[in-house]
């Protein structure tokens, strides 16, 4: 059985990598993401100032040689704030989306593949969770478990997986009646193996696209929660929070909005380019050049 896994690794994913490496836009996206992630990891070392270092006398100043991206109303260096904010935002974005991805794919694939009563029960659970007001759900979690950044990841992921489950389920339902799935069961493959080897790889296209859309929306959701005081707390920061504060002072100090906004947009662009590239690369039907 193990050898099958390695064979699989040596074709679809390997071919995908070869194709991806020929897609310039996707590579740019990947490069940008790597830079952003490395910067976030190294922030405590390379950040020019401390993220709490205030200079109340200076207040908000426009970008200058000392403060490349300006300072906020407390005189804190924006570049530093954005770098520290990126740590939180990227972490929330990736981890919460990964949670959503894993639960959503497994849940949706199981419901869609087995169908019948199991499907009905699993999807009604999704419907109920959909109907539950998100804020109440989050607040309840916070009340029960207290403020905790890990809980934030979990809470956001637990909500975002619902749509993923629905997307995967509809894909799987279309796939499970395909003759290649029937061929696999006539070979005696177990149902779990069929889901893993034949069904999930064929749902990757829409899943990847939806994932690249989920990451930025999760980052904004975090900002919203933090703004309500449920997420991370000042003086810690995130891009979402910085943008929120920036909006308030947009007219006087536009750089407080522009730079965190740029950071978020840049991430979004990188994700979209990479996502499109990945989708094409993982589909053998797109041409190899």
């Amino acid at each position, binding site marked *: 059985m193990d050898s099958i896994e390695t*064979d699989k690794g040596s074709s679809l994913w390997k071919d995908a990598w070869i194709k991806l490496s020929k897609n310039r836009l996707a590579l740019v996206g990947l490069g940008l993401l790597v830079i952003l992630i490395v910067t976030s990891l190294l922030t405590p070392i390379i950040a020019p100032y401390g993220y709490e270092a205030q200079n109340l006398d200076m207040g908000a100043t426009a970008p200058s040689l000392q403060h490349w991206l300006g300072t906020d109303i407390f005189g804190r260096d924006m570049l530093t704030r954005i770098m520290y904010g990126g740590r939180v935002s990227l972490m929330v974005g990736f981890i919460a989306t990964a949670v959503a991805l894993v639960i959503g794919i497994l849940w949706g694939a199981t419901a869609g593949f087995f169908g019948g009563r199991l499907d009905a029960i699993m999807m009604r659970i999704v419907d109920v969770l959909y109907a539950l007001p998100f804020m109440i759900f989050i607040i309840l979690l916070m009340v029960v478990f207290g403020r905790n950044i890990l809980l934030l990841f979990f809470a956001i992921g637990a909500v975002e997986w619902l749509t993923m489950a629905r997307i995967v389920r509809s894909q799987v339902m279309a796939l499970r009646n395909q003759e290649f799935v029937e061929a696999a069961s006539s070979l005696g493959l177990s149902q779990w193996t069929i889901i893993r080897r034949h069904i999930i790889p064929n749902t990757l296209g829409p899943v990847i696209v939806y994932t690249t859309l989920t990451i930025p929306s999760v980052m904004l959701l975090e900002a919203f929660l933090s703004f309500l005081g449920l997420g991370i707390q000042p003086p810690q920061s995130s891009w979402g929070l910085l943008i929120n504060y920036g909006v308030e002072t947009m007219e006087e100090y536009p750089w407080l909005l522009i730079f965190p906004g740029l950071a978020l947009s840049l991430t979004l662009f990188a994700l979209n380019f990479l996502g499109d590239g990945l989708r094409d690369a993982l589909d053998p039907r797109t041409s190899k050049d």
Partner: protein
Amino acid sequence: MAILEVDGLKVYFHTRNGVVKAVDDVSFSVDSGETLAIVGESGSGKSVTCYSLLDLLPKPPAKIEGGTALFNGKDLLTCTADEMRHHRCNDIAVIFQDPMTSLNPFLTIGEQLIEPLIYHPDKSKIETRSRAKEKAVKLLDEVGIIDPHTRFNCYPHEFSGGMRQRVMIAMALITEPKLLICDEPTTALDVTIQAQILELIKKLQETRNVAVIFISHDLGVVAGIADKIIVMCEGTIRETGDTDAVFYHSSNDYTKKLLDAIPEGAKVLPNRVTSNEPLVEVSNLKTFFKNESGKNDDDRYIKAVNNVSLTIPRGEILGLVGESGSGKSTLGRSILQLAPTTQGSVKFEGKTLTGLSSSELFPWRRKMQMIFQDPYASLNPRMTVFETLSEPLLYHKLATKKTIASQIKQLMDDVGLSQGQLKKYPHEFSGGQRQRIAIGRAIATKPEFIIADEPVSALDVTIQAQILDLILDLVERHNLTMMFISHDLSVVRYICDRVVIMQHGVVVEEGDTEMLWANPQQLYTKDLLAAIPLADPISERARMARI
């Protein structure tokens, strides 16, 4: 007098991978009251030729590079969009292949029928609703819809496939066109329905004196109705001629190849070992599906397979014939335990398979395999040929890492594919090659019994002949037992030793192939055999006259 004269038509598709010459320098003419058949395999450009006349091609990528198409002296290729709309509303009508998707499910067929009359672009020709309805009802009657007044208000889903195609024909004729283009109008239909529709088209054409262009991949279908035939291949015309001349005196190699590929008569396999030892025994098998909308006890279940018993001796090729909905595919899947059976038993080598758990079934799975109809759907698009072929070997532990490469090369040889193609994905192959891969997967575990579910019905006729020969060759070499499911009786006669005829989930008749052909007992079998179109114009015309 020629109503349509096409001269030097060239349609090229400009794709990323270069220019595809879909239609290259095609010229022909059709007189009114005449039927011209355009015959060719998929990709021959037969449909593109006709769609380009009506401006129905997506442009880009399609581009008309040259030629003229004079319809009553006016060039269709250079006319404006308004003029084209005028032509479509008045002069030229099309019947498409699939009656299931060509009708809008949200409108009654009556509403769709009168649409061209009450929304006519020419204001003076707009008819009132009641006059339009009168006309439509009369036409529905003419195309053989019983009780047209009531049926006028029915939705498409309330009609069967054959009835829908009749409605489509009525829709095409309602504007009283002078030219009717039929694009494979019977390909999606059962053989008995096909015979009725062909007859209807022929009759309407004679009474209304319209010119018909009949596009088909099947020479047998056009033999009885065409006056002239064009044989197309790869965008060019290979032969033009009167029907009889094309069938009986063709000197063209490609036409000959097409005619030769039509399965005719029975083929005897020389070195077959058949024994009387039963390999598969099906007794009183029932497979029912729940019907949620069923009201009384009788229609609470769809009885797909209802009390079927049959025995397949080792080494036999058994044909299972039936029209769509006869339960033949479900029977095949029930035998392989891919569909849950309701009652009865299936024995394989004397061992009862019904009721076994999937792990108990596993060792038996190796011995029984399946070949599917659609080679585009039966291969996982994200697996290379190597992976597809290695899966059965590895899961049944028939190969080790060391031997697998040589075993797969052997398989590729067996099914006639070159070994250089192992790293390719299914979409890089043609339909026939894909079917070869699917066959390779089925024989990888060295099974004893194979169920082939319409393995050639999605393929072109020349490819079909090759795949049938491959199947026969493999049966012979590996001493396989096979159940061959098909709706195509000529194919069944060509390949099968014995035939079982199914209708509505029940076995109607069974017997040795040649005996059944010579002397069918049941009315249904006689109807089926009488409906087969013959690739021989003289006997086909005689057959159609008989019906």
